[in-house]
Structure formats: structure tokens, C-alpha cells
């Protein structure tokens, strides 16, 4: 070898085959020092670039984060650069393909001898870097190498798994995963042949696994032998495994899961003989009913007893019971289960479902109005994994063993959907065998279970009265209620506010208070700017958030909600219950007033003006009032308000923010033209006022739209959902502390103000001047002064 490095023959920066090479970095962590920019590597399997020859020569070294390490495999590689494709090593299959090498040879700057012995076939035998073998690789060997590189590439790009080319204890086995039909009991014996396996980690639904051997030597053996080896999967198909070293196994871990509330699985509730008897008792002969039903069911066979279940509307006809009722043999079981307390009510409807492997049922909630709370399902013939999904997106897979009874009540019956994925294998826990329970996310314990023919007997009680559950959004009985409309008179306005403001706050008071603990800075600023000994009224004080901000003031809070005022009282503030339109304080008695997020609850412009007028009445001459109302424009000056930004899907753990913390939900109705965003509409709502009486409405009986939380407002008058939580901080028996029941949804009425509307409204008041007008975190604000 030449003593001095030959002159650089040319730096290619693009892969000649794929033209890739973007993001070329000349220095990478662990870059071979002193060699300067050396190579471009590319993810394509043939990618190799030529590089100026370094004093190290064309060696079998590679750079990985952490420094240069000698390559183990003996596979020739030219390392050293990091391209945008992110591959950390490049394999040369044919060193003479490298243009720079050819160039160097042609120009005589390098001799052939420098290259001999470097390109080596990547086979499992010749690991010895000393052996001199032919640099030409056979076709199959080249193909194999390509595939291995492709596997590495895919793992990196799609799964973020970084492979290394030096030997470690851990290997990633591409094509050997639960997701492509390879089960633990097939793979493990194969791996164990090469050494002691510390752990075999099989992430669910993934086409790869990780194996960790006791020593790197053993891993090396496996790597060398198994790479490209064929195994047979569960369905008898041939699979080629590709192995690569990794520093450590990495995959996304799911959080701890609990069974959906109200769910219970009772194992071995019937004996094998009973199971056989029940299965044989069903007569699956084709009759007219079945044929009608088959057109709705892609995957499974069904039979109904007691009442016919109609798949067109997913409901039963209560007035048309089927003759015969439930089969006689079921009676004895039902009586027994009632007596033993597994079920609380005697069902009167039975649906028998037969699922062949590969059959499933789409995720659904059993129609609220059709059936009572308790729904029980007996699994016969085969076990299966049923998926329960919460509207938040949490999915809990539950194993239902043979001869077990699934009992769904409460939340698991009314709110969570349940379904069975149509597939032939379920991912189950190896250690638990076929016991019931949640399928863990511990990838060290997962394997596949082949499905068999499963028959389920689902017993339900038909409902005779409309459903009245705590989950109105998914309840067909409750969703039928007529939504409220825009008020047309003062009485209607008062009634609307009673139903959609006062009643709601009384119900949600405690939960509401727990989310209202951070005083807004600019309100605090206003209060702190007042002189010592000022008398201040907080009209619509809520939970008294601002009553204690400045101890030098004497603040009296008023609110319409007794429960919220109770909370103020608990905090030792002075507060009373009254309406903001009739505040029982003497005129001119207050040095200042605040009304934060209150006036937007009044449903007509007249009432909003009246509320402002009342504030002014309370002020002494020269006194100031601060008013905050929710803005229509939740994005102002291109900045999204906090309300819009906090688009977290919460799982019931509420974190205090100063705006609603609620889950996004479906927009129920869109109403055209009620309070549109253009300023024309805003102005008209104010100029109509001097006429008094009712405004002419362009849309009569317009329904109020329901807003989707954390999105912009569709109209000025709308209902905003509040997702009520049960008692915060109280764990329910059997549930981990902090697990909350998503409770009912309440709708609150709001009239959100558009830009300038609040100011314009204030300008119609007597003896008032506007000192300041601004936008603060999704609210329009004014500071008024009584002249």
C-alpha cells in the first residue's frame, strides 16, 4: 500500500443509481478523523461511493455514532459519510463498480493490489476477514445482500430502528414478527439453537422481533447462520428471516390499561358438556328470516330468540315478540346466574352469533333505546379477543376464553364500543395462556393464537322506556330531544338561560370550580391597581377566583348559582346569590366592578345591555368597571387563543386551565345565517336596540348550533358542551385512582362577541366613557368609567 494517501479522485455526492444524496453532511459523529469528506452513502443497496482513498485504505471499518469500530462481519464497506438517507454503512459488492476506483486504476494512482481481497461475499461462512476470497459475488449472494440492506433500511425509515454493523447482544429479526404470522413458539426454538436467549420480544402487529442473547458471540453465531434462512410460519408459508444487530430493542410502549368500567368476564361458567349441548341445540337450517338477515351480515351467522333484532336500524320491535321466547335450556343457566349474582336481571332476548375464523363484527355500541343496561354474552367453541374502544381513542383488547361469560354494564355497555376484528389469529399473552383479561402490551410475552369456530349466546333485556343514561351523546333516546332555538322574547330568553346556563352551572359547579383556579393576569392587574379600601363588586364571581386577589380591597361577589356561591363562602369570601340584571347593592356604592366571562351568557342584546347598565349603576362617579366576554375570533393577530391551542384529548384527568377543558366532539347541527361572522351582522344586533322590543329575525325558530370544543365558533349564538366528570380525586372501587368516569355532557348557552361589538354596546350606555378596549386570550375586554 502506498505510504501517502493518493490524491482524491473525485467526490461524488449523489448516488449514481438513485440520484439521492440530499442533506449530505461532511462531518458526522464518529467520522473518521483526518479523512475529510469522504463518501456519500445512500440507502440503495448498491450505493457506494467513492471516496478519496484514506490512509486507512479501503478497510472494513464503519462509523457509527460513538466512533470508529472495526467491522466485524468482514463485509467490505466504505464508510464514512452520512447522507440524508441516513444509512450508516454501505456495502460494496463490487469494488470495481466504484467509479472512483476505476478512475484511480485508470490513472495509475492506485494499483489493483490495493483492492484485492476487499470485496467479499456476504455469506454466512466466511466471517474471517483474513481469508482471501473472490471479490465477485454470486447472484444469489448479491440478491441476499440487497434484501438485507433493504430490511435495514425499512426498519430504520419506518420503525426508527437503527441497526449497527458491529456485533452486539441484540438482533432485530425482520420478517419474524407477530404481525406477519410468526409465533413465539416457532421462532424461539430456532433462535435458541445458537445460544442462550435472554429475551425474545415480539411487538404486536409488527413484522419483526428482537432477540437478546446472553453474549455477543452467540448473537454473532445466530446472525451468521440465520441471515437469509427460511422458516415456515403458522399458515405453512415460507418466510426468509433477515437479521441485523441493534444496540437495543426499541418499540412504543402502551400505557397501563384497565378494563372498561362495568365490564366483567366470568371464566368457566359452564362445563364442557353444557357447552357441547348448547352448541348442538342450535338449528342453523336456512329459513326465510335467516336469508333476510344474511344480506346485512358479511361475516357471521345469527339466530334470534325472544325478539327479532333488526339490522336496518339496529333495534328491536318491542311490540312484536317472537313466539317461543328463549330456548328452554337457557332458562336453567339464567336462573343459576341470577342466583349466583353474575347477572342482575332476567333477559328476554337472545341472539346467537357464529363466527368462523376470519369473521368479526364491526365496533358498535348496542342501541341504548333497545336494551337495558346489562348485556351478557356466553362464548362457546373457541376463545377470542374482543376490542373495547373508548371515544377518546383508547383501545383495550380483552381475551374471552371458551365457556366464559362476558358481562357488560354501565360505561362498558353504554359508552365503549365493542367489536371483533375479522382475522384468523389473535395476539395473546403467552404466559397467561387462554385466561381472560386484558392482553398486555408486554412484548416479552406475546404470541399468536389461532382462532377456531366461536359461537356466542348474547342475552339482553328489551327496554320498554326510553334510555336515560349518563352518556347522552351516544344515546339515541336522548339525542332525539329537540335542541333549543334562538329566543324570540324576554321570557324565552330567560327560560333559555335558566336551562342552558343556570341549571348547568348548578350541576357542574364543583367540577367547574376545579378548572377555574388561575386568575387571568390582566384582571389581577386591574384589581391590584385599585387603591386600598376600595369597595369592589364581582358580578358573576363564579367560584370566587378574583375575590381574594387583592387583600386591600373589600370585594363582594355575586353569582346566580347557589353552589358556586357556596364555594366562595367556603373560601371565606363575601358572596351572595342574585341575578346580574338585578344586583342588590346600592347605586353608586362601588368604587369598581368586574364582570369576567358573564355577559356572554345573556341570550338577547337587550339583556346584555341591561347587565352592563347594572354594572354602571353600581359605580360611584369616577368608578371603573372591567368586563370580559368570549370572543368570536379565537384567532387574533394570527395567534391562536389558549382555548384553541389546548387541543388535547384528555382522558378524564383534568388539568386546570382558564378555559374549558373538554374533549372534542361532533358538531351536531350547522345553522346557516344565525349571527354570521361578518361585521354587518354584529352592528345590526346593536343598532336595533333603541327600538326596543323584539328584533326582526331573518331566520325564525333557528336552532342553536352545538360547538365543537377547541375549534373556532361557527356562529355567535351557540351551545358549548361541558363534559362533566365525576368526583375528581375519588377512585371507584376496583379502579385505579384517578380513573374518571366520563359523565354526561351539558350544553351552555353563549353569545360570543365579535370585534367591536362590546365597545359598541358600551357606547349605548348612559354616562359612561370607555377607557380601554383590548383583546386578551380569546376575550374582548373593556374598562369603563362612570362619568
Amino acid at each position, binding site marked *: 500500500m502506498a505510504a501517502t494517501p493518493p490524491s482524491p479522485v473525485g467526490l461524488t455526492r449523489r448516488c449514481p443509481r438513485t440520484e439521492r444524496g440530499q442533506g449530505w453532511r461532511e462531518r458526522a459523529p464518529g467520522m473518521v478523523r483526518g479523512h475529510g469528506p469522504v463518501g456519500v452513502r445512500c440507502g440503495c443497496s448498491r450505493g457506494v461511493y467513492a471516496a478519496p482513498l484514506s490512509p486507512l485504505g479501503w478497510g472494513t471499518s464503519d462509523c457509527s455514532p460513538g466512533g470508529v469500530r472495526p467491522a466485524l462481519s468482514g463485509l467490505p464497506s466504505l464508510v464514512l459519510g452520512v447522507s440524508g438517507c441516513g444509512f450508516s454503512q454501505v456495502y460494496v459488492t463490487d469494488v470495481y463498480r466504484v467509479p472512483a476506483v476505476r478512475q484511480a486504476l485508470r490513472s495509475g494512482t492506485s494499483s489493483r493490489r490495493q483492492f484485492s481481497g476487499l470485496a467479499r461475499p456476504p455469506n454466512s461462512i466466511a466471517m474471517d476477514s483474513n481469508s482471501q476470497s473472490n471479490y465477485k459475488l454470486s447472484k444469489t449472494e448479491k440478491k441476499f445482500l440487497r434484501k438485507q440492506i433493504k430490511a435495514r433500511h425499512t426498519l430504520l425509515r419506518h420503525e426508527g430502528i437503527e441497526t449497527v454493523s458491529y456485533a452486539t447482544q441484540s438482533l432485530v429479526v425482520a420478517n419474524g414478527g407477530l404481525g406477519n404470522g410468526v409465533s413465539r413458539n416457532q421462532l424461539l426454538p430456532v433462535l435458541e439453537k445458537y445460544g442462550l436467549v435472554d429475551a425474545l420480544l415480539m411487538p404486536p402487529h409488527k413484522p419483526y422481533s428482537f432477540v437478546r442473547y446472553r453474549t455477543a458471540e452467540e448473537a454473532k453465531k445466530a446472525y451468521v447462520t440465520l441471515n437469509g434462512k427460511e422458516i415456515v410460519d403458522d399458515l405453512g408459508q415460507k418466510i426468509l428471516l433477515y437479521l441485523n444487530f441493534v444496540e437495543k430493542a426499541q418499540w412504543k410502549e402502551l400505557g397501563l390499561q384497565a378494563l372498561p368500567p362495568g365490564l366483567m368476564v366470568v371464566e368457566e361458567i359452564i362445563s364442557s358438556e353444557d357447552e357441547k349441548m348448547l352448541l348442538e341445540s342450535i338449528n342453523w337450517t336456512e329459513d326465510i328470516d335467516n336469508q333476510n338477515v344474511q344480506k346485512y351480515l358479511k361475516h357471521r351467522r345469527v339466530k334470534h330468540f325472544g325478539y327479532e333484532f333488526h339490522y336496518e336500524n339496529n333495534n328491536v320491535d318491542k311490540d312484536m315478540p317472537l313466539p317461543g321466547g328463549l330456548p328452554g335450556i337457557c332458562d336453567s343457566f339464567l336462573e343459576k346466574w341470577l342466583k349466583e349474582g353474575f347477572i342482575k336481571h332476567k333477559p328476554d332476548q337472545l341472539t346467537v352469533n357464529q363466527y368462523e375464523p376470519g369473521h368479526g363484527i364491526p365496533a358498535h355500541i348496542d342501541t341504548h333505546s333497545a336494551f337495558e343496561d346489562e348485556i351478557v354474552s356466553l362464548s362457546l367453541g373457541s376463545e377470542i379477543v374482543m376490542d373495547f374502544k373508548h371515544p377518546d381513542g383508547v383501545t383495550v383488547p380483552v381475551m374471552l376464553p371458551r365457556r366464559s361469560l362476558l358481562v357488560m354494564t354501565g360505561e362498558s355497555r353504554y359508552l365503549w364500543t365493542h367489536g371483533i376484528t375479522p382475522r384468523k389469529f389473535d395476539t395473546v399473552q403467552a404466559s397467561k395462556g387462554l385466561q381472560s383479561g386484558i392482553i398486555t402490551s408486554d412484548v416479552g410475552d406475546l404470541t399468536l393464537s389461532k382462532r377456531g369456530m366461536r359461537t356466542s349466546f348474547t342475552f339482553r333485556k328489551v327496554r320498554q322506556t326510553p334510555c336515560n343514561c349518563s352518556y347522552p351523546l351516544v344515546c339515541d333516546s336522548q339525542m332525539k330531544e329537540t335542541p333549543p332555538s334562538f329566543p324570540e322574547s324576554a321570557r324565552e330568553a330567560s327560560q333559555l338561560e335558566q336551562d342552558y346556563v343556570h341549571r348547568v352551572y348548578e350541576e357542574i359547579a364543583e367540577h367547574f370550580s376545579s378548572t377555574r383556579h388561575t386568575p387571568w393576569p390582566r384582571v389581577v392587574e386591574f384589581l391590584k391597581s385599585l387603591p386600598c379600601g376600595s369597595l369592589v363588586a364581582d358580578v358573576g364571581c363564579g367560584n370566587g377566583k378574583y375575590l381574594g386577589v387583592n387583600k386591600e380591597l373589600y370585594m*363582594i361577589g355575586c353569582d*346566580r348559582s347557589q353552589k358556586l356561591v357556596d364555594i366562595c*363562602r367556603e373560601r371565606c369570601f*363575601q358572596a*351572595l346569590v342574585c*341575578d346580574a340584571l*338585578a344586583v*342588590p347593592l346600592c347605586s353608586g356604592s362601588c368604587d369598581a366592578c368586574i364582570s369576567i366571562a358573564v355577559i356572554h351568557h345573556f341570550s338577547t342584546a337587550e339583556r346584555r345591555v341591561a347587565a352592563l347598565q347594572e354594572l354602571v349603576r353600581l359605580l360611584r362617579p369616577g368608578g371603573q368597571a372591567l368586563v370580559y366576554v368570549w370572543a368570536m375570533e379565537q384567532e387574533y393577530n394570527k395567534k391562536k387563543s389558549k382555548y384553541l391551542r389546548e387541543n388535547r384529548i384528555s382522558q378524564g384527568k383534568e388539568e386546570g386551565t382558564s378555559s374549558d377543558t373538554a374533549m372534542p366532539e361532533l358538531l351536531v347541527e350547522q345553522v346557516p345565517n344565525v349571527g354570521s361572522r361578518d361585521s354587518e351582522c354584529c352592528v345590526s344586533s346593536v343598532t336595533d336596540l333603541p327600538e326596543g322590543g323584539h328584533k326582526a329575525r331573518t331566520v325564525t325558530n333557528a336552532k342553536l348550533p352545538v360547538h365543537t370544543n377547541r375549534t373556532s365558533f361557527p356562529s355567535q349564538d351557540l351551545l358549548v358542551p361541558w363534559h362533566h366528570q365525576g368526583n375528581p380525586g375519588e377512585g371507584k372501587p376496583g379502579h385505579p385512582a384517578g380513573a374518571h368516569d366520563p359523565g354526561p355532557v351539558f350544553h351552555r348557552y353563549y353569545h360570543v362577541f365579535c370585534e367591536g361589538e362590546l365597545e359598541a354596546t358600551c357606547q349605548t350606555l348612559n354616562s359612561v366613557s370607555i377607557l380601554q378596549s383590548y383583546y386578551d386570550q380569546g376575550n374582548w375586554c373593556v374598562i369603563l368609567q362612570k362619568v
Partner: protein
Amino acid sequence: MKLLTHNLLSSHVRGVGPRGFPLRLQATEVRINPVEFNPDFVARMIPKVEWAALLEAAETVRTLPHARVHLPGEWGGGEWSHRQPRARGGTPGDDLGLCPQLHLVEVPKGPIEGYEHDEKFLRQMHHVLLEVDVLEGTLQCPESGRLFPISRGIPNMLLSDEETET
């Protein structure tokens, strides 16, 4: 409800206007709450006080039987239900604000000359305005006779729809 708050309350029954002040206080249960003495604060309150109304309200509290006045320290904060009679006598002028019962304290008839610097006066006013808490009772509109209940220290001044309709 503190007596200072009562001093600001006025009936808002329709048509009553300024004749709705002051609301006649009938207290059935009162508690004495120690409050930190801030002389500056009290001094600034004095000009805002309606003396006649204050004296009237103080009188009704003064005439309450002993059993209905809860003193600080009788039991833990916030318990309204069980009362235990306790030996009377506290130390007047205590720094912690454990003032003697209201009916032993003289309520000044009006602001005196140089009240801002008169600590005794200010302390008396402090006690009357801020330390007397009416827990149960009623407030009556002098003009219409309408009664507003005070329950757990909270006056409920909500009017029905008929009373507020214009």
C-alpha cells in the same frame, strides 16, 4: 354576611328604588370571626359607611341571646351544626383579634374627630364591620316587606320572575 356587606345591600324589588335601603336585618345565628386588623383599610371604609343602618344592624346582633353567638375557638372552622356553650370572657384588645363579644363592645355612634389615628375607634369599627358574621337570618325590604333568607352566611337575593319583570 358581614355587617359591612349588609351596609351596602339594598332591595331591588321592582318599584322600590332607594326606599329599599336599608334592609332590615333579623339575625338568628351569628359568628364572630377574627380578622387581621388593618388600620388603613378600616380608616378608608369609615367614610363609606351608612351609620344609621349600621347601628340598626348592630343592635339586632347585640340583642341576640348568648347561645346564638358563636365565638372564635369554640370549635373548628365551618361547623354550623352543633354548638357548645362555653365560658364567657375574652381578653379585650388581643393582638390575635380575639375581641370580646359584640354586646360588650360599644359601637361608636358616628365617626369621631381624627378617627384615622384613633386606634381604639378603629378597632371597634373593625370588629363591628368585619368580624361579625351573620350565619342565619333574614333581610327584609323596608318598602315591600319581601323577605330574603340568609343561610350559611349567604344571603339569597334572587327575585322570582314576576318580581323582576318590567
